[in-house]
């Protein structure tokens, strides 16, 4: 006999509802600049007083966090931000760093992602002028310190750490417990093409709701 409360049994074949507990959009609603072709999941979390920019064809998965408490968050073109990743995170003491102005005197903004960047599940990219170069993959659970500058086409494998303010040269692979080596495969173009194909599929799989944030 079934219980009185309607239980969404994932094995039944009636119409099922996703069990998505409501995400409370706490904090100020940020001003946003979304490209018309980007995909923002409905349960993405965007907070902060500064602007959040998501460029052409980028994908923000459900439950990804974009926090602009330390400054502007810029996501480049064809980026993928997985669930539970946080762009503009506080550091381990809970402080949101504000970037120091660059040589032209402009504010660096909290986090800047180049094009074709993938930020995987649970990665924390701290705010404070952090720059992730084009084509880089920030692995699962990785923490990128405040103000770090990661080069292009780098691979930060899972659970790695980039110290605050560190500069990582292009094509670096950070693996194991902090070991580094250089990626000499020369597959950057192929990876970019594969990312474009992945984004085509993700745009169909993830229902986008940019209007919710505008």
């Amino acid at each position: 006999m079934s219980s009185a409360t309607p239980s969404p049994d994932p094995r039944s074949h009636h119409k099922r509802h996703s069990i998505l507990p409501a995400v409370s959009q706490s904090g100020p609603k940020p001003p946003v600049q979304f490209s018309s072709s980007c995909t923002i999941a409905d349960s993405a979390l965007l907070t902060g007083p500064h602007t959040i920019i998501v460029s052409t064809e980028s994908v923000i998965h459900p439950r990804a966090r974009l926090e602009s408490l330390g400054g502007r968050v810029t996501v480049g073109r064809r980026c993928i931000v997985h669930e539970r990743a946080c762009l503009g995170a506080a550091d381990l003491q809970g402080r949101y760093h504000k970037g120091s102005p660059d040589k032209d005197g402009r504010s660096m903004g909290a986090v800047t992602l180049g094009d074709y960047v993938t930020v995987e599940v649970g990665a924390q990219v701290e705010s404070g002028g952090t720059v992730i170069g084009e084509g880089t993959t920030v692995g699962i659970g990785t923490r990128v310190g405040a103000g770090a500058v990661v080069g292009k086409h780098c691979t930060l494998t899972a659970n790695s750490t980039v110290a605050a303010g560190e500069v990582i040269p292009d094509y670096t692979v950070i693996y194991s417990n902090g070991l580094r080596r250089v990626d000499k495969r020369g597959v950057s173009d192929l990876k970019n093409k594969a990312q474009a194909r992945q984004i085509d599929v993700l745009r169909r799989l993830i229902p986008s709701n940019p209007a919710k944030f505008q």
Partner: protein
Amino acid sequence: PPRGEYIETDTGNKVARKATLVGTQNIMLGGKTVIQPDVMIRGDLARTIPSSHSSAGGSAGGSGGPGGSNTAVAIGRYCFLSRGCCLRPPGRVYKGVFTHMPLRLGDHVYIGPGTVVQAAQIGNHVHIGAKVVIGEFAIIKDYVKVLDGSVVPPNMVIPSFSIVAGQPARIIGEIPEGGIEAFELRELYKTVGNNPVPATG
């Protein structure tokens, strides 16, 4: 009546109300499986390549969507997904098109808190520790123990009866003869839910 922390289904699955299950049509739970709060299962990342035997008489198909179920995540019996873990189907470029492949868990699989699983297949009686990362398309056979904090690289195949640890994960030992009973999760299943039975021993 007060709402319990878990939803208990007819087949004995205990799914926490605060778990995030996206795309539940594509998630198959075997029965007697526990899903704790803050678990995230991406059932929406399902396979997008149409299978070779497409449904005939498609015009009479059901509301929207294809007729057959398109499983993204299949979980066996007596599995235990601890708090904060994330199950995500792996994806790759297959025949020129990017697609996700189903993530299949066997029976009696324990997944520790904070773990991220992107494997292709996990066998029966597997114990995965806390804060583990299982890379895409990894295959874990039966009776394997993955220690806390391991990072299993993509495409790794872990043979049966291994103990695996490290970053990247390496086989560091074998499950001893008497160690098989430790993988059973029936007792653990009874200790959670709306009417938990206290754990013994």
